[in-house]
Each structure stands twice: as C-alpha cells, then as structure tokens.
C-alpha cells in the first residue's frame, strides 16, 4: 500500500515535471529491467566526444512514462516477440550446408558482448561491418543460405536476439587503427547539413536534444537501445532504417541501408554513446 502510494506520487510528479519543462530528459528515473537489471542511461562522455556532449543520455530518458515503463518489463516489451522469433531462427537449419547458427556458435549466449563492440572491422581488416554484415556473412559463406534483407523481419529478429545477450554491457567501439578513417568519415557526415532543409544530425541531436520539433521530442540519437521496437512502425527497427528516415526528413537523397556511409555513421554515433548500457532491446515512440 505504502509502495503503491509512492509509485502514484512519483507518477504524478513525473507528469508535473514533463508539463513544466520541455527541455528535459526526465530526472531521477532509473531504467531497471524486470525489477532486476539496472542499466546505465547517463554517463560522462568519452574523450573523443567530450567537446560535443556534456553528458551522454539514453533515448529512454526522453520518452514518456508509458513508453519508459514498457521497456522496464520484458512481458510488456513488445520487442520480445521478435526476440523470440530470433532465438528460434538461431536454432533453425537453413541453406545448402545443413547448418543453423547454433551448429557453429552453440548457445546464443556465446554472442554476449558482441553488440557493444559493433560496428567493427571484419576479420580480413578491409571493411567495417555492422551486425547485419556478420550475420549475412555467416549465412552466405558458412550456411549456404540466402542473405537476409538489411531491415527485414528475420534480420531484425536476429539482431534483437543477439543484442539481448549484451544487455547491461557498456557500449565500447574501437575507433583507432583501421577504424579511424571510418570514424572520421562518420563524424564528417554527422555535421554535414543535407537536403533542402539543410539539417545535420548535430542540428537536432547535439544542439537541440530535449526540445521538440512539432510532437517529436528530440533525443541525442543514441544507439544503445537498437534494434528498437518503434511503436509508430509497430515493429523492430534497425539503426540504418532510422538513419534513412532522418536523412529523408531533411528533404535529402538518403543513403542505402548497409551502405559504407551508414556504417561509417553508425561507428561515429556509437562512439558518442560510449559507456551507455546496451538495452537489448529498447522501446521508442
């Protein structure tokens, strides 16, 4: 009873705060999943982005109370249905070699930590790969199966299931060595004002997070929740799909999902979120 009263008070307070200040992220709220796993949603920026952000903030902090609550309980998190599909696909044999993911990798828990390090250079060291590239490399070269579409439902189910294995681990991508030039390219893209509206990523997500464009509450555009269940799309959405939507909304010619440009941008944006917990998987409006 006492606990209920406190919850009610907290909720009432949250509504007041949201009404009074539009330049939030929400204050004093913790992202605790299933009452058990506390995720880092605020962290000091890494040295490489210290001049850009005073504090690194998860997109979760910018969402309304109902959406935040949805992510805090796996039974309420609509992304978990897709994750279940992904777990099933992990064990499903496909392609000419008669293999599933599990045939080589065993239990999917062997993927723990992977999501936090992506994108990264491939084994050959000649290309920067997102998780989707690694998955399709396995499918085409080891399984003899067809590549999945970058943002198709099988792919997002799989990236969701793999991301869940890294839940709570801090984002930490390598931006040195051969990745350095990718990172520099991504940074240049982040600050380039594209399209007829001449907007860069930074215009909205660095200079105006916490503010509103019409009903859209701008966040820092962090990747820690991805793939995210986007209520507007009623499905899991990939990082590159969201990039595409943003660039399109500047009235620009977008890049393709999986393109070198978007992989470079993914690396740079991931580096801006260093230290945030992988949410595996987030819920956004």
């Amino acid at each position, binding site marked *: 009873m006492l606990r209920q009263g406190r919850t009610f008070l907290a909720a009432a307070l949250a509504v007041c705060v949201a009404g009074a200040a*539009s*330049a939030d992220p929400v204050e004093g709220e913790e992202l605790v999943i299933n009452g058990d796993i506390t995720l880092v949603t605020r962290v000091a920026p890494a040295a490489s982005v210290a001049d850009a952000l005073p504090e690194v903030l998860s997109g979760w902090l910018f969402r309304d109370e109902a959406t935040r609550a949805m992510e805090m309980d796996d039974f309420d998190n609509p992304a978990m249905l897709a994750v279940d599909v992904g777990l099933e696909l992990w064990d499903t044999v496909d392609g000419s070699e008669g293999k599933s993911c599990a045939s080589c990798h065993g239990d999917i828990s062997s993927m723990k930590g992977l999501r936090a390090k992506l994108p990264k250079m491939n084994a050959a060291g000649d290309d920067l790969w997102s998780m989707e590239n690694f998955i399709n490399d396995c499918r085409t070269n080891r399984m003899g199966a067809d590549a999945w579409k970058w943002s198709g439902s099988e792919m997002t189910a799989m990236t969701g299931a793999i991301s869940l294995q890294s839940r709570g681990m801090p984002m930490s991508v390598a931006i040195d060595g051969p990745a350095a030039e990718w990172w520099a390219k991504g940074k240049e893209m982040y600050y*380039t*004002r*594209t*399209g*007829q*509206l*001449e*907007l860069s990523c930074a*215009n909205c997500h660095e*200079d*105006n997070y916490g*503010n*509103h*464009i*019409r*009903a859209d509450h701008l966040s820092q555009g962090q990747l820690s929740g991805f793939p995210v269940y986007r209520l507007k799309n009623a499905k899991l959405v990939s990082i590159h799909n969201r990039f*595409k939507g943003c*660039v*399109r*909304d*500047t*009235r*620009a*010619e*977008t890049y393709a999902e999986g393109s070198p440009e978007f992989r470079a941008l993914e690396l740079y944006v991931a580096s801006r979120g260093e230290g945030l917990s992988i949410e595996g998987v987030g819920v956004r409006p």
Partner: protein
Amino acid sequence: MKQQMMLGAALVLAALPAMAETPVAEVKYVDGAIAESLTGAPGDAAAGAKVMTNRGQGNCVACHVISAMPDVPFQGNIGPTLDGAADRWTEAELRGIVADAKHTFEGSMMPSFYKTGPYIRQGDGYTGKGFEGTLPPILTAEQVEDVVAYLVTLKE
C-alpha cells in the same frame, strides 16, 4: 491580325503578375533584410497563417511557438517564440528572415525558404530520392509575402 494583337495583349497581361516577382537569384539582402515585397504587392495574412501551419509548406510551428494559434497542437520550441516578432523586427527584416535566415543569423538551423540551392544531396521532397536539376524554393514569392503579412500582425 486584330485578333492576334488582342491575343498578344492578353498574354502580356496574364504574364504581368509573374514578371513583377523577384526571382530567387535577384533578391537583395541588406543586413539580412529585404526591403521590397517579392511580389510587388502586399501579402494575405490569412493565407500566411495556413502556410505557417502546413507541414508541406512553411510548417513554422514545427519549431516556433505562436500563442495566437492556440488551436494548432504540438508547437515546437527549437527556435524562439514568434510572439511579438513584429515588435522586434521590421517588415523588411522579417521578409529576409523568412526568405533566408542565414543572412541574418549566420549558421542558423532555420531552413531557407526562398532559395534554390546549392544543396548537399538534394532530394525530391520527402521521398528520400535524389532530385536532378534546380529545385523550386520551398515557398513561392507569394507564400513568403503571405507569411510576412501574418508575422507583422504579431505584436504584444
């Protein structure tokens, strides 16, 4: 012969309003302001209010609060409120800011509404596809004047 002359005269008359418009390339900014109407005529404030709330046109409320439009939901707060804009700026200054705010505020995030480029990776509206050639400005000269006509009514 007489018929042809009359036809010619009619064509000239029909073309007149368009000829009075200042093309994008010939707009003169003085300290960010544009002294003369882009159409040579005053705008229509009521039409301007529509342009300002239409998502495909001005969509000013996406980023600015306008208290005089209480029925327009979800007004953004990226830019300053437009309440009292006419107390702070002259008509010529407002025209310049609407047409291309970057002449008034260097590096402004505000899109340039009476400009044809150059743009980086210019697209065909909100399709995400590229656009070959010269894009028409986001707003016509008439729409810019309509917006200016509305803005000069915003006094506190």
